[in-house]
């Protein structure tokens, strides 16, 4: 359980730090050159951080052979895909 916490915590922190750095770099470069690209990449990295967290959790549950929780995570990822698809279709 302690190991699970460390992995999940690190994946969240990694996502936050990466997106924070990309956003800060994008903003400081301003509207020219690589600025807007970095900014958009930072926002995308931020949005994908919670999704990454579920994937990490699913992998950890699979490794720990906690299959019921693994299936909950897998179902959740499927639901997120469905919700993105519904949203994009509208």
């Amino acid at each position, binding site marked *: 359980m302690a190991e699970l916490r460390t992995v999940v915590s690190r994946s969240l922190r990694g996502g*936050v730090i990466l997106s*924070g750095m990309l956003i800060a770099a*994008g*903003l400081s470069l301003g509207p020219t050159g690589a600025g807007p690209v970095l900014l958009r990449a930072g926002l995308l990295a931020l949005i*994908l951080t*919670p999704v990454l967290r579920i994937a990490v959790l699913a992998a950890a549950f699979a490794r720990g052979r906690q299959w019921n929780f693994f299936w909950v995570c897998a179902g959740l990822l499927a639901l997120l895909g469905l919700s993105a698809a519904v*949203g994009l279709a509208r």
Partner: protein
Amino acid sequence: MTQALVLLVTGAAAGLFGSLLGLGGGVFLVPVLVLFLGVDMAHAAGASLTAVIATSSAAASVYVDRGVANMKLGVVLETATVLGAICGGVSAGLLPARALVGLFGAVLVAATAALLSSRPEAGDGPEEPGGGPLDGEYFDPALGRRVRYRVRRLPAGLSASFVAGGLSGLLGIGGGLVKVPALHLFCGMPMKASAATSNYTIGVTAAAGAIVYFNQGMLDPDLCGITVLGVLGGSWAGTALSPRIKGRTLRRLFSAVTALMAVQMLRRALSGG
């Protein structure tokens, strides 16, 4: 330039209170963006969604590490929330907005009353042997001891999460205002664990919405970027502060927010705005 500063400070305040109370911070952010900075509702909602993800991820990375956020319960509740968000998104437009806002206001009145009237120490550390797969325990420095708790009435927690997801799909708000009281009052979780677990879950709901905004070009990159940087700073401050604050104090602070929001929502419902 002053606008950027206002955004940064507002984001920091939203992150601070959001990470302490288990809210995304959209509750504070959207009114400021719309009323003071003249941002239109759609772009304000998009910025609010990215801010919710930032608060949730930054706060959860710390709360998960400390063991306060209940990860297993979190994923189980997230399925109900995302399902609710899909239903809410699909049925948006079928129900009149005024009725929804009124309903939300009524829920908040009930939550405030319940938070203020329950036993002063309820959930602040019921010493109970756990053992169930969803039960949790963590060390609370403010109390100076380990807190063990049992998760009760899971169906009630799931229902509340479904409603929270539906509201966020319909109204573009985070579900923390509904989730935190439900986890605390129905499921018997300590206030700190409720707030931390809510924080952990709301990022997922917000991500589902934000990806759609992102693809439709509805995220203003500068607006979102500056706000997010403020939120990240505020969230880290909030998680540093959290161990020193008592569960009781959090509960009072939280009920003040729900009372304020209830008044605002009911007024909007009655005036038709």
